[in-house]
């Protein structure tokens, strides 16, 4: 049956699909060409072909992106991707987030960054271009295959973003030629992603992931081409770049979680978070051992191994989050698109490459016969890298429990309470890593004077004890030995690196980058520790409060507080009032007023209003709250709506019923026989029958001789003293009588002048009242996060440090190249 569908715009999809196939073909072509170019460096034609393939691939990626954006931006709901991830009401800047909400879009983002990195590599990597680009194009080949969406031998390869709605779904209405006119709107973007951080966080994170391939390719190319030592120099700035961007991306995600998500924190050890931090740790370890190798010739194998494994772990991360295998353990992983087979092949290929190069090139690797000195920097850099790797092993082991279950058919559940589980392990690793980062600063490469070392270390050690004692006292983290140790080691690390920074001011600028990023990391750790360890739920209900021993942050009794509109409640040092709400569809903003009043003088010390908001989104699973946070220098007050009266939420959904006098909205009426001058009461005040006007007119109604049109003038006075005039009309026309009711909306009143009773000289008045509006209420949770600013500050300082280090390494590399050119 051939149905002609009306109103479909098929051209963009066809263009898009064509370029999807082209990007795959071009990547394959470029991969093969670059492979032979690397094998036969004399023949320049291979390299030329490789470049052509690369540029074709780049062009395809740009066109795919532009087409997909066009489809989403113009709300072409005949395409499943546009329908599933956006809606017509979505503001333009969130269309960008909609673009990468789906897996296809995020794969595109990865490819896009890889193309940008590829362009830099093509222009800048010189003699490394062919081997390096071989691996980049291999990865690009795998990524393009994820978008193909074609069935081959009965199994679908990839998932195309250009698939039509009627192809993706099996609803009966999609067989209707007119189905497009029935699809009024798309499903919309998940409200959690409707946050400005979601516009910037995914691109940063994916740039981080994508740039991890560059250290991989340099390490692999170095081993493949047997240019064992050369790859470290060009690889190092790239590794630093990847670490910097991925670190910033991860913390942005954490900031988004803190600002927009409702789990009440900035880090939850969710598998999705873990898998992004694991490759970050391994690449940081790689950076350190690469520097150790440069300076001492030790730890070559470790450097190569860590560079290679980091990217393999990036692919593993993408397998875990995209295959749906984490379904039971993670709240926010992607749904399965049936591509896990493809992802596994992708993963195994790069793992295979890594093992192949490490095994076959083992013999040729540079090594030194001389043993490392204990008093040498390279030895402790090496130990630090190992500790970081072991920390990763712990995270991988726990995060991968669902994978082991799938592999071995076991049914092991992850730890009941993941946060203490991870904190216990990673806290211990953090202490060791921070101590290493501190005292290694006082060691020199190859051999240091042990006396000088101990003198410098002890001096900083004593200072660190003093300063951390002060910090621990004021931030109340003395309740736990681990907290004390972490604070101390972080302070120690900061002090030791401050000394290095002090030397930098005396002219040794070369080490400033590392010192600054170490200080940043130390600050970050202290901020994270204090905020995570001492955050307290302040919305505790006095009567319901049950003290719970230990530090578990699971839902304790009484974490939610019930507030009725306009009724203040004392919560700790704050008096809080739910002052009202405002609607900006689809969100309802709840105004929660915080006031701190001096008990003795009654003076207002502090007053602010937080507006956490929530939207009732049945398609995304009910009420979704977004916290409101007040930032102070030393702490944050975080407030989240966990439940709310449904009527204010109903107001956010557009009303459809007509205007006017819907009797169903009112209670049973009261009928009175009244005369002019009578006063009657109603729930919120009284009203007076003032006078009658016999010369009333009614629009569109002529008045005959025997007709009667009487207007009753009533003055309604509310309890607040407000007056509202209202004039219901009684009409007798052609011996039929009827009436025109009038309302006072503000007071929920309606009056009908229903009869004139000449016998009694009375008038019949029907008064309708709306039922009392239910008082609005909210249930909310408030948390105080002390010193969380250290966490954000530390991140910024660390990123600056990385920038400085990259600058230095790039400059070093250039100088070295110039020197080599001069020599030759």
């Amino acid at each position, binding site marked *: 049956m051939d149905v002609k569908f009306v109103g479909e715009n098929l051209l963009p999809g066809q263009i898009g699909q064509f370029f999807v196939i082209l990007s795959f073909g071009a990547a394959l072509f470029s991969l093969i060409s670059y492979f032979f170019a690397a094998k036969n460096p004399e023949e320049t034609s291979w390299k030329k072909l490789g470049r052509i393939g690369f540029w074709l691939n780049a062009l395809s990626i740009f066109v795919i992106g532009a087409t997909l954006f066009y489809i989403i931006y113009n709300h072409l709901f005949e395409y499943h991707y546009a329908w599933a991830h956006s809606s017509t009401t979505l503001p333009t800047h969130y269309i960008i987030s909609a673009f990468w909400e789906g897996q296809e879009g995020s794969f595109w983002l990865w490819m896009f960054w890889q193309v940008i990195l590829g362009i830099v590599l093509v222009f800048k990597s010189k003699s490394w271009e062919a081997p390096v680009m071989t691996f980049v194009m291999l990865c690009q080949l795998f990524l393009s295959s994820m978008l193909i969406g074609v069935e081959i031998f009965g199994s679908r390869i990839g998932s195309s973003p250009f698939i039509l709605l009627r192809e993706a779904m099996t609803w009966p209405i999609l067989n209707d030629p007119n189905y497009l006119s029935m699809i009024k709107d798309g499903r919309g973007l998940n409200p959690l992603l409707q946050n400005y951080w979601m516009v910037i966080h995914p691109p940063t994170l994916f740039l981080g992931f994508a740039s991890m391939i560059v250290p991989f390719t340099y390490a692999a190319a170095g081993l493949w081409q047997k240019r064992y030592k050369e790859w470290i120099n060009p690889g190092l700035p790239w590794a630093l770049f990847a670490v910097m961007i991925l670190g910033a991306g991860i913390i942005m995600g954490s900031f988004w979680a803190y600002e927009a998500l409702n789990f009440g924190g900035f880090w939850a050890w969710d598998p999705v978070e873990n898998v992004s931090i694991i490759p970050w740790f391994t690449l940081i370890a790689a950076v350190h051992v690469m520097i150790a190798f440069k300076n001492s010739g030790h730890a070559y194998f470790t450097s190569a191994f860590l560079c290679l494994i980091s990217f393999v772990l990036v692919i593993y991360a993408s397998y875990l989050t995209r295959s749906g295998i984490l379904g*039971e353990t993670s709240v926010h992983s992607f749904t399965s698109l049936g591509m896990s087979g493809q992802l596994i092949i992708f993963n195994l290929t790069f793992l295979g490459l890594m093992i192949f190069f490490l095994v076959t090139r083992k013999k040729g690797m540079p090594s030194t016969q001389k*043993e490392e000195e204990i008093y040498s920097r390279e030895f402790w850099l090496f130990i630090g890298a190992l500790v970081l790797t072991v920390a990763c092993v*712990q995270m991988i*082991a726990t995060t991968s429990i669902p994978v082991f279950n799938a592999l071995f058919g076991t049914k092991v559940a992850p730890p009941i*309470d993941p946060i203490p589980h991870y904190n216990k392990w990673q806290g211990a690793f953090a202490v060791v890593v921070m101590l290493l980062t501190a005292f290694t600063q006082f060691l020199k490469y190859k051999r240091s004077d042990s006396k000088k070392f101990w003198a410098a270390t002890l001096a900083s050690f004593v200072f660190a004890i003093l300063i951390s004692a002060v910090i621990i006292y004021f931030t109340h983290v003395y309740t736990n030995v681990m907290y004390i140790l972490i604070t101390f080691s972080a302070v120690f690390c900061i002090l030791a690196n401050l000394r290095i920074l002090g030397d930098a001011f005396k002219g040794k600028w070369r080490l400033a980058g590392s010192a600054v990023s170490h200080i940043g990391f130390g600050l970050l750790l202290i901020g994270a520790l204090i905020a995570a360890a001492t955050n307290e739920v302040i919305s505790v209900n006095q009567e319901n409060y049950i003290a719970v021993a230990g530090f578990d942050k699971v839902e304790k009794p009484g974490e939610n507080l019930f507030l009725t509109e306009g009724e203040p409640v004392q919560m700790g040092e704050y008096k809080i009032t739910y002052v009202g709400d405002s609607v900006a569809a689809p969100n309802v903003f709840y105004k929660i007023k915080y006031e701190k009043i001096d008990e003795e003088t009654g003076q207002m010390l502090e007053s602010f209003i937080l507006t956490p908001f929530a939207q009732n989104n*049945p398609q995304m699973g009910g009420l979704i709250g977004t916290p409101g946070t007040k930032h102070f220098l030393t702490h944050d007050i975080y407030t989240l709506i966990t439940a709310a009266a449904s009527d204010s939420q109903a107001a956010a959904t557009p009303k459809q019923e007509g205007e006017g006098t819907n009797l169903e909205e009112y209670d049973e009426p009261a009928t009175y026989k009244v005369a002019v001058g009578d006063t009657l009461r109603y729930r919120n005040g009284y009203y007076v029958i003032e006078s009658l006007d016999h010369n009333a007119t009614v629009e569109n109604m002529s008045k005959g001789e025997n007709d009667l049109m009487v207007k009753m003038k009533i003055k309604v006075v509310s309890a607040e003293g407000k007056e509202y005039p209202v004039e219901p009309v009684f009409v007798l026309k052609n011996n039929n009588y009827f009436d025109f009711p009038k309302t006072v909306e503000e007071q929920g009143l309606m009056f009908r002048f229903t009869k004139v009773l000449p016998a009694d000289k009375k008038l019949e008045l029907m008064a309708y009242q709306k039922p009392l509006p239910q008082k609005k209420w909210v249930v909310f949770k408030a948390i105080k996060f002390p010193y969380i600013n250290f966490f954000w500050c530390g991140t910024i300082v660390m990123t600056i440090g990385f920038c400085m280090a990259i600058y230095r390494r790039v400059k070093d590399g250039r100088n070295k190249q110039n020197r080599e050119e001069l020599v030759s």
Partner: protein
Amino acid sequence: MKKSSIILIGIIAIAIAMILVIYTDSSTYSTFSEAKEKQTELYVVGVLNKDKELMYDPVKDANHFSFYMYDNDSTECQVVFNGSKPQDIERSEQIVLTGKMEGNTFHASKILMKCPSKYNQDQMEVIETTAEPKTAFVN
């Protein structure tokens, strides 16, 4: 033997020991009857009994929510959660509870839900299709 090799072996040993410890930390997915026997914190997987009322009255107590759930052996049990009602629980197709049995009620400290909207796109759209034709076929 080089110092670094000794340290490497030491660290590998620590890593292996660590993984063993991790698995003692791990838990199992069990049932209500097991929870009754063991009296420890554990996971129970099951489905919501949609015929019985979900009790949550924030006016009375904003931190008390109770409902009935069938576990994987189809044993029904009352569950009490000290917190506000997760909004989409009525629509959940699977619930993973963390908590422990106290008397005849299960006290949950955490509720993780699998909802059709998040995990199974097609199913949600089936719900939508049944609602669609009402307005769609007017013209």
